[in-house]
């Protein structure tokens, strides 16, 4: 999957700020654990395996360590 379209967030900056805030003061290990819990909660909220597979693919194909084929 390439390109997920435009943002679905109405207040992108505010969400981004909340995300960073949630990690403030956490050790690396605690941040990793937080992220893992967040991913699982979000996956449950999305609740659609096909969408999740698409998101996994999008995450894998963007960024420097991207697996492009």
């Amino acid at each position, binding site marked *: 999957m390439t390109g997920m379209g435009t943002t679905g967030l109405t207040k992108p900056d505010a969400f981004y700020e909340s995300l960073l805030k949630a990690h403030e003061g956490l050790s690396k290990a605690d941040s*990793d*654990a937080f992220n*893992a*819990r967040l*991913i*699982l*909660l979000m996956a*449950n909220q999305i609740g659609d395996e096909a969408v999740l597979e698409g998101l996994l693919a999008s995450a894998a194909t963007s960024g420097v360590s991207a697996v492009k084929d």
Partner: protein
Amino acid sequence: MTKLFEVPLYPYQRSKDQDAASPVRHPVVIIGAGPVGLALAIDLAQSGVPVVVLDENDKVSVGSRAICFSKRSLEIFDRLGCGDEMVQKGVVWNLGKVFFGDRKVYEFNLLPEDGHKRPAFINLQQYYCELYLVERIRMLQAEGKPIEIRGRNRVSEIEPAAGHTRLIVETPEDAYRLEAEWLVACDGAASPARRMMDLEFAGRVFEDNFLIADVVMKADFPTERWFWFDPPFNKDQSALLHKQPDGVWRIDLQLGWDIDKEEEKKPDHVIPRLKQMLGDDVDFDLEWISIYTFQCRRMGTFRHDRVIFAGDSAHQVSPFGARGANSGFQDADNLGWKLKMVLEGKAPERLLDSYAYEREMAADENILQSSRSTDFITPKSEMSRIFRDAVLDLAEDHAFARPLVNSGRLSVPCIYDGSPLNGADTDLLPMRTRPGSPAPDAPLGADWLLDRLKGGFVVLGINCSVPEDISLNGLKVVGVAIHGPDIGPELRDRYLGEQSKAVYLIRPDQHVAARWLEFDRTAVEAALAKALGAKEEEHA
């Protein structure tokens, strides 16, 4: 006290085969009187196929070993005539607790689906299971059925020949020769037969050790299943506590791969750990300790011409999910009727290839399931541990995370989708009873459906008349018609769905072969031919 597994159950007796002038040939010889070999022998003998079982030992299995017997295994035991013994002795549990580190993250009640004669599973020591199977063999012998079990008969050589296999069998007296038209190797994970034939045993390998301890509690202790992830008394590993009959509790401690087995097994080492696990105030006696090593792997193919592999000799899985012995019984269930049909000339030898196809598929499924459990229980990377721990942390407050907790997915029978034996289907009937699936049980008034689906192939008519016997190539097929008031909500839900009537062709191992909305003799005959291994053009 003498333990059951210390008493010879089938002591050596000289067989007349040992004094025969030339090697005696038997239709079926089974190597190994473990649970799988015994079950297969019963299935064959009770349908009239002569069978000889050879075992190098003369006792039941040492220690409890497999302890969880699934509903499907119990249904198979019912068909073999020893289900009641197992269930009466076994322990049924429903409450499970999951611990993570030093805290309980949640508990669950199993609440199995209603409308089945047998519970989702029972806990029973493997030696009791084997004992009841041997007792069933004694009953069959008393009825004059052609079944023999020869203790302290060790197979030391196997030589495949044209149309049979030659064996050399060692006994406490002399060694003797024997021939088998069909040889079934149920000789366990270390299978000497596999080694003698130089066959591979490959696949995904997970190396792990378990310390298995049977303890007798001196005071009341709850009948619950407790599973620990990463407990303080077994850092980075798992632990399991399970109740068995006779006040015996089974404790499994996962140890990992690099361990000193002799050291780990010493009571001075084990007892403090168990005290940490059970609480200091719990008094217990240690009955049996063993270290069990397993890998996940299977043979490339389970049929090698006239030598067929079943049970642990063919496939080995991790103990999570109790798929070892349970899948072995399904092997036996699948193989018994096929051997009979081939031996009696009612099916081509090719039918036995479908045993390999179906049970290799099942083994792959079991290996996949138990590998997933293993990946959850012992995370292989830092990130997989982070996710595993996140699931366990969430499980405490969020019900959605609980199904992600994988401490073993309990053995369920494989659905043989795509099997060459599967015949006609219609998607107007429920998915769960499609061809290839194990026929689910359902109440029939005071009786049970599966108790009616016995004695060979069955044509089952629901709200639909079927002839009482149909024959094809001289093969008698049992007709079972169920009408009106006997059709309860479970039967309707599992076999009819939205339809008012249906016809099912059920194989002797109680798997669905084909199904229709009404009875058509020609269609049933074609499906029967297919289920017996005929190629398309032979019954077109």
